[in-house]
């Protein structure tokens, strides 16, 4: 006699979107930082794309994935933030005391976080177009980049929701978001792999799945439809999503169980 999952998920998602919009400071800083990456790195570093390793690529197209991933991770992190907030102010328990679908209680904030991600990513891509972005693969390529952003965001949403459900504590969840920095910067963030000087950074970049996300997006933006270069991002997403979504599901099960 449980409730309808779809109806409840709808109710929870709408409510999460509402509360996110009422707290503009929960997304504006991340949006500004992401736009800032784009503007500052393009303004300050675009000269290095003259180097032969860049093979004549436009630096704007090269740096855009960094900005997109930053926006995507920030948006998806909103899922964890709203779950923590709900646990802390007792709203989560209030929902558990109703016949609301347990799945919907956890899915609502995650879906809202994904929508936040989509809007933020679109805004960043929009800014890039205003700055004169040209995409090698055209409209379909932009869609591909968007899909990669969503996939990578989902992986991060799983991680942030998992941490939130496990700890139920704002500080711990906040500390969990610090993974943002190594994830973005220990990679081929500013220059292609061949130009990274330090050996340790090369190793870090190889391990960091974000590298494959960047490469995949850059292939679509700069090189064109090179199948395996595009696929590396997709594979990274599948692997990491499997891990983080499992983590989120196990944590969610624990949070709503009555042990």
């Amino acid at each position: 006699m449980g409730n309808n999952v779809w109806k409840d998920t709808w109710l929870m998602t709408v409510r999460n979107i509402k509360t996110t919009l009422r707290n503009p400071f929960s997304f504006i800083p991340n949006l500004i930082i992401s736009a800032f990456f784009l503007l500052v790195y393009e303004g300050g570093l675009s000269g290095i794309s003259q180097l032969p390793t860049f093979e004549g690529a436009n630096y704007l197209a090269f740096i855009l994935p960094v900005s997109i991933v930053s926006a995507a991770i920030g948006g998806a992190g909103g899922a964890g933030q709203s779950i923590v907030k709900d646990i802390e102010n007792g709203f989560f328990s209030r929902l558990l005391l109703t016949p609301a679908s347990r799945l919907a209680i956890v899915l609502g904030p995650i879906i809202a976080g994904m929508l936040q991600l989509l809007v933020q990513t679109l805004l960043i891509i929009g800014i890039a177009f205003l700055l004169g972005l040209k995409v090698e693969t055209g409209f379909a390529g932009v869609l591909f980049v968007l899909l990669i952003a969503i996939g990578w965001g989902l992986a991060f949403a799983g991680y942030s929701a998992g941490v939130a459900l496990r700890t139920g504590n704002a500080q711990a969840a906040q500390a969990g978001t610090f993974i943002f920095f190594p994830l973005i910067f220990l990679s081929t963030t500013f220059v292609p792999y061949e130009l990274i000087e330090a050996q340790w950074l090369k190793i870090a970049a190889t391990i960091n799945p974000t590298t494959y996300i960047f490469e995949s997006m850059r292939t679509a933006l700069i090189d064109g439809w090179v199948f395996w270069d595009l696929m590396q991002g997709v594979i990274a997403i599948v692997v990491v999503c499997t891990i983080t979504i499992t983590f989120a599901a196990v944590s969610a099960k624990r949070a709503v169980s009555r042990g």
Partner: protein
Amino acid sequence: MNGKIVVENLTKTFKKGNVKAVKDVSFNVDDGEFFAFLGPNGAGKSTTVQILTTLINASSGKAEVAGHDVIREPEKVRRYIGVALQETGVDPDLTGREMLELQAYIFGFNKEDGKKRAQQLLEIVQLTEAAGRRIGNYSGGMRRRLDLALTLVNEPKILFLDEPTTGLDPSNRIAIWEELRRLNKENGTTIFLTTQYLEEADSLADRISIINDGEIVATGTPKELKAQIGNDLIALALKDQTQQDRAVQLLQQQMQDMDVIRKDEKILVYVEEGTKELLEVVRIFDQEQIGIEDIQLSSPTLDDIFLKITSEQKEEVKSHGE
């Protein structure tokens, strides 16, 4: 489905620290009854509420709420109960009206009925003026009232309230009391309330169970419990502490129906009619030339009741041991 609560040998042990929070508790609450669980902090009141409202599982024992087993049929139980936990469960970014409407939709109201129900409840708890404001801006009392309204959305058969007035000022406390009385009388809602305040249990409940350290130590109507405890309490301090043993002995001999307990440097006497017995105590001590430093007459507090019950438990242990 009915408004009954049946609890048999309920036990909850938390794995963390191996704490036994509820020990073999059994009780029944009848349809339409106003029942209070009275006990100090950490007595096991909240744990019991959490089990009965399907938030946590019991370690052993059985509990039926509204005719359904809380462990096997939690979804059914959730439909028929309203719960206000110690901490109010509200989203500060929603308005009071939105919060109530959301709760109504979750309970299956359609859009129109949900809006109507929200409006109705806002009127009942007198929050119509604040309905459009975000809950984050509400005062503590307003939040409590909204929380109460939220528990009523589904017209519950049984209402669980975990310390609903703790931390409230007197006027808000009385407003909540009145609303609870009305729900119980007019709608026939069964109410299970936990409280630390004797006064609250006394004024509201048909029947009270006193819980201490995870166990029910006494159950009865307020009148029965008071009769057991005595209506008034005389607290005495002697001028000469060395005379205390003799003084207690004297009182026990000469006032046989009364309970006499030592607490630190004081002697406590539980009596039926304070003013009459007070004179008697003074007369006895005067006769025996025991000097009184201080003497006070008051109503027993929850502390006094526990002191009495736990001292009786100790005596029982002692007499069994001999």
